[in-house]
């Protein structure tokens, strides 16, 4: 049975390694031949775990949908049966923490949002380090091509202690969607600096016509990355080297004031309760001149059944701030549960899910920004793209200047909640400096406790 000598004895492994090395040396120059050679030599075999079953725990999103759609392809290729569960993000995160904490997980592979879960999962070593798996030539497809993964993506997937406990799939830099028609009507140019964003928003704001100059998330928790988009441009950080919060210094206050001015003066009525979907629907109706949010929300804007502004959308890279030009970034990937008893088959799944074909499909569907550079060179995917080419250009430029849009700490949700409330209060007129001071004082003990434990 193939699964009985899954990892083989030491002798067996050495032989496999040798064979793989020889195979790769002989055929490495012929593109696409590596996999065939590996199979012929018995080194790497997609079918080695034939007949096993793994459970995959995904987030309901365009990316989760895409993977699920093609699971059959993986099953045919490997003979492994995939059971998958896909639930909304928030519930998925809760269930994951509760299961990991119980010391036993019902899933083998899990989708992870780096901006929320990286530190918590890394600190508890809840996901398997993939480095030993990558080193094992009998388990790793010679075509994996690690160099193809972008640096930003690998930075997300690498823990501070060097462990790589997931493979990155998607990075989500924040950009400014703008309505070119509204900009042209008032002959306003796309802003080139932070003050110009504020000016443009004020000029384009036209409450009589129901048009807002600027829209973004005002809802607590969801709104924090909007503020950090400005914070990073002002040269701000979240935490200094000694573990002290820097979220009430001058840069943070300037960023918060900019947030306050934009949303309170040029934002729609009730923006304090807006999440991305309210902001998106306003922008779709042609009722907002600018919308700052993740790049993954583009597809509906170019869908004639949903949007009134098809073909009029500009995709703007975040303008440079006073200190630097940064696009705040989210990201997600998948890892193997440390409690899984089927790490071999799970590793095959990870390799398949992040392979070049799946990454190209993600781009084609505009379901996210693939971390593999090869996806952007895939002519077929680019030709079939459901959004304009400008979107791809904007994404590539943004990805180059991207930095994490949230601090990499365990209590991210509490951070977002506390600072989110401060920001919402600012929209409703509270003093920016005082709110940040209060939020920082409230969160510092939470942070200290989480880092100590």
């Amino acid at each position, binding site marked *: 049975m193939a699964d009985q000598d899954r990892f083989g004895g030491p002798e067996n492994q050495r032989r496999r390694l040798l064979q793989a090395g020889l195979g790769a040396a002989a055929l490495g120059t012929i593109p696409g031949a590596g996999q065939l050679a590996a199979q012929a030599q018995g080194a790497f075999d997609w079918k080695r775990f034939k007949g096993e079953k793994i459970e995959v725990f995904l987030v309901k999103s365009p990316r989760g949908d895409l993977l699920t759609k093609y699971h059959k392809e993986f099953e045919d290729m490997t003979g492994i049966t995939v059971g998958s569960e896909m639930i909304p993000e928030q519930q998925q995160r*809760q269930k994951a923490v509760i299961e990991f*904490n119980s010391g036993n997980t019902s899933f083998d592979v899990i989708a992870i949002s780096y901006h929320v879960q990286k530190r918590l999962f890394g600190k508890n070593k809840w996901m398997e380090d993939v480095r030993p798996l990558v080193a094992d030539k009998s388990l790793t497809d010679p075509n994996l091509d690690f160099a193809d993964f972008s640096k930003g993506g690998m930075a997300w997937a690498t823990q501070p202690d060097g462990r790589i406990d997931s493979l990155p799939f998607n990075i989500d830099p924040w950009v400014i969607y703008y309505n070119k028609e509204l900009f042209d009507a008032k002959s306003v140019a796309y802003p080139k600096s932070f003050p110009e964003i504020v000016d443009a928003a004020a000029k384009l704001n036209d409450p009589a016509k129901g048009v807002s100059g600027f829209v973004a998330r005002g809802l*607590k928790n969801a709104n924090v990355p909007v503020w950090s988009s400005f914070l990073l441009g002002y040269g701000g950080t979240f935490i200094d080297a000694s573990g002290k919060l820097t979220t009430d210094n001058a840069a943070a206050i300037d960023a918060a004031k900019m947030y306050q001015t934009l949303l309170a003066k040029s934002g729609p*009525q009730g923006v*304090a309760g807006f999440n991305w979907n309210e902001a998106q629907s306003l922008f779709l109706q042609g009722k907002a001149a600018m919308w700052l949010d993740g790049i993954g929300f583009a597809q509906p804007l170019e869908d004639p059944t949903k949007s009134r502004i098809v073909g009029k959308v500009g995709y703007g890279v975040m303008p440079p701030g006073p200190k630097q030009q940064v696009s705040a970034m989210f990201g997600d990937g998948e890892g193997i549960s440390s409690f899984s008893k089927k790490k071999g088959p799970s590793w095959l799944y990870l390799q398949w899910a992040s392979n070049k074909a799946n990454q190209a499909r993600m781009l084609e569907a505009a379901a996210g920004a693939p971390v593999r550079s090869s996806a952007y060179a895939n002519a077929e995917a680019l030709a079939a793209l459901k959004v304009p080419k400008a979107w791809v250009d904007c994404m590539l430029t943004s990805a180059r200047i991207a930095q994490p849009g949230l601090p990499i700490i365990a209590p991210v949700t509490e951070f977002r*909640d506390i600072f989110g409330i401060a920001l*919402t209060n600012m929209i409703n007129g509270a003093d920016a400096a005082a709110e940040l001071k209060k939020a920082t004082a409230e969160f510092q003990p939470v942070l200290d406790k989480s880092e100590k434990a």
Partner: protein
Amino acid sequence: MSTIVMPPARGARFLARRRRNYYLFIAPALAVVGAVIVFPWLFTLWMSAFDWTIGSAAHFVGFGNYQKLATNQRFLESVLHTFYFTALAVAAPLVLGTAAAMIFHREFPFRGLLRGVFVMPMMATPVAVALVWTMMFHPQQGVLNYLLSLVGLPPSLWVYSPMLVIPSLVMVEVWHWTPLVMLIVLGGLAALPTEPYESARLDGATEWQLFRYITLPLVAPFIVVAAVIRTIDALKTFDTIYVITGGGPGTASETINLYLYLQAFAFYNIGTASAVVVVFFVIVLALALLLLHVREKTKWT
């Protein structure tokens, strides 16, 4: 066989044996109650004495969590929001429900059909109701502001304003649960005797006097039952608020239940969350006792 003919000692033994046998019969019920009610309760009490966040080690802190809650401004505000919300969400459906019951108690064409229509909101799922209301509340695209504009009123911010959010949420509760109060009170009205009304009419009582001095005291016990049910429901309202505002804007509609949810399932502070549960339980218990006391009183009038 009778115990009378037995010597006293044997009789006592028999009774003791019978008592033992009874214990055997209630054992399954005891086991179930112990497992699903008593044990979780004791465990919650136990956890509330620990400083424990999932993903890090637990420390015993005794009453530390309670002390922190007592000075936590956000928690105290959530208690106030809960009382404010509950007061409105009990009073409004009681008044409107009683009025509706008075109307539906009269004879008029299509009464049965209209009663059925009136009760329909109760059958809808709270989350679905909340989602529909979320769309209606939208400041730019919502139908409520459109209706206001039709009668020449300026648009309102509804749940997007910290001042209006709780009354707006109560509107949803009123729409959803007034029919329940109506049904309970209608049941009470149907059981009323007709004689007091006849004699009062002979004495020249007005319609208002009939209602105020005869109907209201007679249906009061039913209204109190409705009040008890509404109070318990309103106190523990979660889905409506969570779906429509998530406790926002800021923390303007954050009730104890939402605070509890955040602590337990968003921040994973299990110790704090357990302490909140205990405090919440005490509040619910106190209110329930108060209402039962009121109910005893109405029985004698």
